[in-house]
């Protein structure tokens, strides 16, 4: 039975590694300027974790194979060097990994969260609610109208609770169900939650950020490829959570300007 366990362990180790080695499951093509660093980090970690996983399973299999079913009274042996070797090995192996991945990897985190957006970044406000995303562009004046929770009226499409009758800034705000952005321009997304917690996740952008009610959060990114990508909610927000999505539409600079004009004309 010990030998069988050893064989099963080897099969499990190899079968688990197979889809990784053959790239059966890989993240979609990265369309951001910062995603490359995250992907590299993921690759490095996959290599180190994968090697550790397979090695540990193979060693376990080898020892189970070798030391089961021995003749009764077979002399016991201790691993050369004993516990000391194990402790030193753990500190060296894992310590190096932590230094390599932990410290170097912070660069990828820093590009997303520590570097402030450039001054010319386009500001767009994203509102998450049960169970939709809405996006607001400030319009020609470059200023967003104030949000009035009591004025929110979904039936009349006043998703943000704007008050154009009394506020000049609110009058030219453009509200859209789709996030339309120009390619290769930095976008600063100002995140606002209307009701409960939500999250903004675009796999291709390598961006995920929670919407937290009561907190003004923002993320910034630059999309580098024209196309349409899914925006999904990844924070459990209620019964329609699975169906809460929108699209990110990355267009050329000219198409973006035209789209803004069309929206303003409506």
């Amino acid at each position, binding site marked *: 039975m*010990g030998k069988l366990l050893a064989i099963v362990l080897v099969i499990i180790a190899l079968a688990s590694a197979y889809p990784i080695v053959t790239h059966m499951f890989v993240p979609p093509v990265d369309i951001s300027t910062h995603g490359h660093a995250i992907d590299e980090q993921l690759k490095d970690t996959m290599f180190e974790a994968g090697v550790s996983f397979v090695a540990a399973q193979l060693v376990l299999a080898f020892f189970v194979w070798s030391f089961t079913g021995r003749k009764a009274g077979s002399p016991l042996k*201790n691993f050369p060097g004993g516990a000391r070797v194990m402790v030193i090995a753990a500190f060296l192996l894992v310590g190096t990994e932590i230094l390599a991945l932990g410290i170097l990897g912070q660069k990828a985190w820093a590009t997303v969260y520590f570097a402030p957006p450039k001054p010319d970044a386009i500001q767009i406000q994203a509102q998450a609610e049960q169970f939709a995303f809405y996006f607001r562009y400030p319009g020609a004046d470059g200023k967003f109208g104030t949000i009035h929770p009591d004025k929110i009226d979904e039936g009349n499409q006043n998703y943000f609770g704007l008050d154009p009758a009394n506020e000049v800034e609110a009058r030219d705000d453009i509200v859209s169900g789709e996030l339309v952005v120009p390619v290769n321009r930095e976008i600063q997304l100002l995140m606002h939650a209307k009701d409960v917690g939500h999250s903004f996740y675009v796999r291709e952008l390598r961006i995920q950020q929670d919407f937290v009610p*009561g907190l003004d959060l923002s993320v910034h990114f630059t999309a580098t490829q024209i196309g349409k990508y899914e925006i999904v909610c990844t924070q459990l927000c209620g019964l329609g959570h699975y169906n809460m999505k929108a699209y990110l539409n990355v267009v050329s600079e000219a198409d973006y300007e035209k789209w803004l004009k069309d929206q303003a004309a409506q």
Partner: protein
Amino acid sequence: MAESSIEPAHIHAPPEGFIRKYVFSLDHKMIGKQYFGLALVAVFTGMILSWLMRIHMVWPAAKIPGLQFLSSAGAPGGVITPEYYLSLMTMHGTLMVFFVLTNAPFAAFGNFFLPIQIGAEDMAFPRFNMMSFWVTFTAWVVLMLAFFIPDGPPIAGWTSYAPLSAVGKDAGPGMQYGMSLWGLSIAIFCIGSLLGALNFIATTLDLRAKGMTLMRMPICTWAWFITSCIALLAFAVLLPACILLILDRHAGTSFYVPGGLVVSDRVQPHSGGSPLLWQHLFWFFGHPEVYIAILPSMGIISHILINSMRKPLLSSKVVIYSMMSIGFLSYMVWGHHMFLSGMNPMSALAFSFPTLTITIPATVLTLIWLGSLYGSNLQINSASLFALGFISMFVAGGVSGFFLAQPSIDIYLHATYFVVGHFHMVMGVASLFGVFAATYFWFPKMSGRMMNETLGKLHFWITFVGTYCIFMPFHYLGLIGNVRRYQSFVDDFMAPYIGWHKFITICALITGAAQFIFLYNLIHSRFKGKPASDNPWNATTLEWTIPSPPPWNNFGDKHPIVYHDPFQYGVKGSKGDYVMQDSPEQVVPASGD
């Protein structure tokens, strides 16, 4: 241990009558069995809930016969609705984390064996002990009530993030009374666990037999002791967190709810609270909880491996110190659940490093287990198979933690199936492998009968292979960005991967079905199993020095005296290759060691 004229609290009269013997028992062994029974009911409930979820995900139109009687709104005609899927998920997580992973490895086996392993007659406070169980039982009843009320169980997940959990019925079905029952249940559960943890600590520190120094305690006793220290601090934070949640829901306070929220077209009458407060309090408990689930299993499988290898570990001390460091570090890492929650990005770095560092003691443990196998005479039985399976599973679930500990990678993998695969493997299945190993190993002592080995091995093979078939693909699906907590795979890119989810569902059905082999084995052996001797595994610790099952006061009128470290295997003893802890004979090393 000091003699005094007052009768110590832990000495009590033998139980008389059915009620005092089986229901309101003061006997730690009966209480341990009660916890085990409760965990057993909870784990099968939780497992069937996971079946329903898995079936609904891949065959959404499937009719589950009879389910409409449980919830006519949630499953009209037996077809699960999207919101009922979230109810099932919430209850699955809550049952498994609290009533299975906290109860089974820690409260059940710890209660039964910790006092015996240190040579005590009972727990330090038997009445508190009885109360811990019945409080925990009440918590379970309150939680289960949610299935039978009109608006059904809550849909906020086992983490119950505010404000979804705090604003009441506007948040959706199940969020009125169901959510309140959840909060109440968990608050009650915290009280039971706090009492239990205190009892474990007092017992370990005060009731050790003569000669039982701290370093002579078996590794699993150490694991239960360290776990109780973690539990004492963790549940002490979750309890007030739940109280604040209940206040927000029913007393009009605003701890977790900021102003200006519009839920279901209604401006919420709250202002000034912070959703992050709940997250901080919850995860300050939540991450140590992971170690409350797995540390006992680490101790248990160390104990069982030593017995099966017929030799001690390379170093018990290093194992104990590693478990202590894991316990200590477990309090500094809760923020890794919140990298993307909007807290200051600097703090992500502060939480990431201790998280990565926890890999060091975990790796030390793994290397010690692996290195100890070298040169042993490994005996294969159901218990040791599950112990070896634990190591394999712990490594698998551990390495995936290395991804999630890094905030930059978490940006992509957070809230995907990668996370689900990770914690199911390490906190869920690895811990349960410890529980299975413990059951096969200690059942003879608990019941006086042996379990069926053939069925035990069959149970192992299906569970071991099945677990990998279920949770490895979870990791892969996470890599492509498959989001968790979705009742249906509506994202465009998911279409080609539905086949994988079907495969997972089929594996889950088979692996789950194999658990009924375990249940049958358990019940059948309890009544029809081969009678067990006092020491069927030729083991060395104190529980094997007394009859199977032990008398109500464990050691009769004797007071055991301990002469040795717990694991004197591979020596020349009068009985064979081992010397028991209470044997005064000198330990002579076997030749060739």
